[in-house]
């Protein structure tokens, strides 16, 4: 999607992209602490995803950043300037709402131009900039259309154009993909990533869907019960979770108890002890840990191989490129693994081994 020349608007967006810093953000609703001492930095042009289950405080965080909620504690800085007390209309942030919040009584063009209208920009310029913003999201010629006549994907793109046309310092997206059907969702998130990267706008993207987060964001922040658990690239979160909560939340995994010593972890399941090389986080001391066995790090071993657990297949789920198997070890421990062996059936006795090391370990 890279293009040779940038339009003046696009240059402006890149130049205006700000550094967003949250420091100790806290928000309580009654006795419930929705967001608890959350700090996060987003670099200019960076695409940060904030993921968490529903009720984890991610939307509250986003609304505080936008200025719709005010924090009970903490500060928000834009390029080092404290904007905690600025009302939303003075923050120069663009926001894409979960249900898009398109003004139903205005045309697509009027919707996109509204932020410019609010800035007192002349009609002719509003019009041309709205047209360019719509072209930016692949909706050339939609200016006159009615909002009600748009498909879900088109509404999402209009909402994006409306947020981008004001050349926001930061773009906020609240579950922008959750209202799309699965097929559209996949293509839309590719487009979204491409558009945001091309424009180089600083973005904070809230979602409960890790696939969306991994596909779109440069870095991902995991939030749970209002607390920030870990920030990092998707592969870092997957391969080196900082805590049990992150290991359980990101991807699939079976957590089995083990003993960490140096760079090795010993797990004793299925009636056997195995020593595996460990990806050891600095904060975890030697001793009792949980080893994170990812389904893609496990594989079937040949039945007579000595390096495997004896197990029975309890479940088989065909997923196209891969097949997900659930197996039960002799001591009742369940493992999940991905394979391509089509002739393995439920009830078969198999041998399972760790195919990729090191494995992640987390504090128990």
């Amino acid at each position, binding site marked *: 999607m890279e293009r040779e020349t940038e339009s003046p608007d696009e240059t402006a967006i890149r130049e205006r992209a700000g550094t967003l*810093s949250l*420091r*100790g953000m*806290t928000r309580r609703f009654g006795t419930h602490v929705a967001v608890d*001492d959350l700090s996060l*930095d987003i670099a200019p042009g960076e695409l940060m995803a904030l993921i968490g289950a529903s009720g984890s405080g991610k939307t509250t965080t986003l609304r505080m950043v*936008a*200025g*719709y*909620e*005010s*924090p*009970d*504690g*903490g*500060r928000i*800085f834009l*390029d*080092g*300037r*404290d*904007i*905690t*007390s*600025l*009302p*939303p*209309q*003075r*923050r*120069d*942030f*663009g*926001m894409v*709402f*979960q*249900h898009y*919040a398109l*003004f*139903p*009584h*205005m*045309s697509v063009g*009027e919707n996109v131009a*509204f*932020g410019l*209208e*609010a*800035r007192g920009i002349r009609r002719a310029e509003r019009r041309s900039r709205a047209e360019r913003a719509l072209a930016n999201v692949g909706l050339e010629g939609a200016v*006159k259309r*009615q909002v009600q006549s748009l498909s879900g994907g088109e509404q999402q793109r209009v909402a994006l154009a*409306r*947020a981008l046309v*004001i050349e926001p310092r930061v773009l906020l997206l609240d579950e922008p993909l959750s209202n799309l059907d699965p097929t559209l969702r996949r293509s839309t998130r590719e487009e979204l990533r491409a558009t945001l990267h091309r424009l180089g706008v600083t973005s904070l993207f809230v979602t409960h869907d890790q696939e969306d987060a991994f596909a779109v964001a440069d870095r991902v922040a995991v939030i749970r019960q209002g607390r920030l658990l870990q920030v990092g690239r998707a592969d870092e979160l997957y391969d080196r979770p900082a805590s049990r909560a992150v290991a359980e939340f990101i991807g699939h995994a079976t957590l089995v108890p083990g003993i960490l010593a140096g760079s090795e972890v010993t797990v004793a399941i299925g009636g056997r002890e195995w020593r595996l090389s460990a990806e050891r986080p600095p904060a975890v001391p030697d001793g009792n840990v949980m080893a994170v066995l990812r389904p893609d790090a496990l594989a079937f071993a040949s039945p007579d191989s000595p390096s495997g657990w004896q197990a029975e297949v309890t479940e088989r789920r065909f997923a196209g490129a891969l097949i997900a198997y659930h197996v039960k070890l002799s001591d009742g421990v369940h493992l999940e693994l991905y394979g391509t062996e089509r002739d393995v059936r439920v009830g078969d006795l198999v041998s399972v081994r760790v195919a990729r090391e090191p494995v992640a370990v987390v504090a128990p």
Partner: protein
Amino acid sequence: MTSRRAAPTPHTATGVPAVVGDPRAWRGLGTWALAFPVFLLLAWAVVLPNVTVIAGSFASGLEHWREFVNSPADREALWSTLVISFWSVFAAAAIGIPLAFLLTRFEFRGRRTLSAVATLPAVLPPLVGVIAFLFLYGETGLITRVVQIVFRLEQPPWTLTGLGAIIFVHAYTMYVFVFLFVAAGLERMDTSLDEAASGLGASRARRLARITLPLLTPSIAGAMLLVFMNSLGSFSAPYIFGGGLRVLSTQILSSKTIGAMGLAYVETTVLAVSAVLALIVFRWFERRRRYVMPGKGRASRVVVRSRVARLAGPVLGVALVTTLVLPHAMVVLISFAREGSWTTQILPTSYTLDNFRRLATDPQLWVPIRNSVSMAAIATVANIIVCFAAAYLIVLRSFRGRRLLELLVALPWAIPATAIGIGLVATFDRNDLATGRVLLVGTFAILPLAYFVRGIPLVVTATEGSLKQMDPSLEDAARGLGASWWLTMRRVVLPAARPGLVAGAMLAAVMAVGEFVASIVLYTRANRPISIEILAQLRDLSFGTAAAYSVLLIGLTLVITLSARWLEGRATAGEHAA
């Protein structure tokens, strides 16, 4: 604002942290800047009059209450008010529920016509409906005389007075509420529920008893409440057809007329308290049985095929339509009758345009028209401004006192119009700035104020309906895009509120232009509205003039309704053209 831990500043460039401010606090301040005047106005126009009446009823200790309890007339009035209300609910339900089933569940020739005609009684201004009944079923009315002649009776077959007459008129004018509520409930109801029940082996009767009626409970309870409240406060029918019968609303007016204000306050309090109690009981019943319909409602109609039904249907239909149209037709007919040409005849013998010509040319007859239109206009404009603010606060702002605001705007709906009128009389009869009382009784302003108060619940409810459909994040979205409060209001909130605001203003204007019940308590000669003049003309036996005024009132109602539709239509068309 406190942070639990010291918040390090990431970039030292700013040095001193910015001045601590709270956007939410500013928003809260903005909310109160709007809420405060609204509360003040409601306290003045709605709360103060009721408090004054209740306080007035205790002005001489319990003396007036004792007077009320010991007065046979008042005891009779309370009893007959309750009896009338009960039977009115029963009669309105007995007509409205079957009619709603007939028109939503069955398909037959003329269904559409009948559906359109079925709501006709609702467009008759209250007093006009009563007059139409007088012309039709009164002692010298058309139907009465026809029956008398056909059956060669010496005396009229009935007299349109007393309990029966009042309930008869109520049933005719109020079954529309039941019909509309139940029909809407049936339209919303997912027929797959009924199909599921029949698939499980339930008979038609069982499905009706176990599925349909329970799901309709909120609709039926809501409609019954409306009928009950309207009957409780009904004034026109008892006033004109009561004969010797007393009801609370007429007792209040007669106490006020003879200057027994203490007793009038007690009667008003009793009436208002009964209404509020009824409201609480019905609401409780309605809430207990409220379900969310699974899926989208899709009503399907059964085509009527049986021979008997197909033969009896049209006959019944024509009879029904005739009965419903007759009052309107009769008022129109009499409006063309030459005065004095309808005394002992079945129908007037001579017709003319004089009645209408006089309304336009005789300054004395023109005054009430001018009054009604201007007073309704003033009240409606005030309603639009205040009720938009109130609905906005209720739907889109959260603040301490929101529930109280909801209660205050609903209060004029719960309190019968007679009681509202007495409240204003009691409160605004003197200048006493300390308590907010100003002398308005006897001035032009008292009637627009009464209409304004009566219009509040209508406009607020309708506007709330529209605002609730608006996605609340639209307001956030506009603010986030940099729009000021005023721009957000003008370009986002107001357009979202407009359909309800227009519809509510229309209802309020229609109510105000034909208002009778509060008017008869408050009017002076200078600001007498059309309804009062109709009554005066009836007393003079100038049936033609009274009917001409009535037709004019129906015409005004129509003009208001159509211009509201036109306004909405134009707005919608404008959006699509843009």
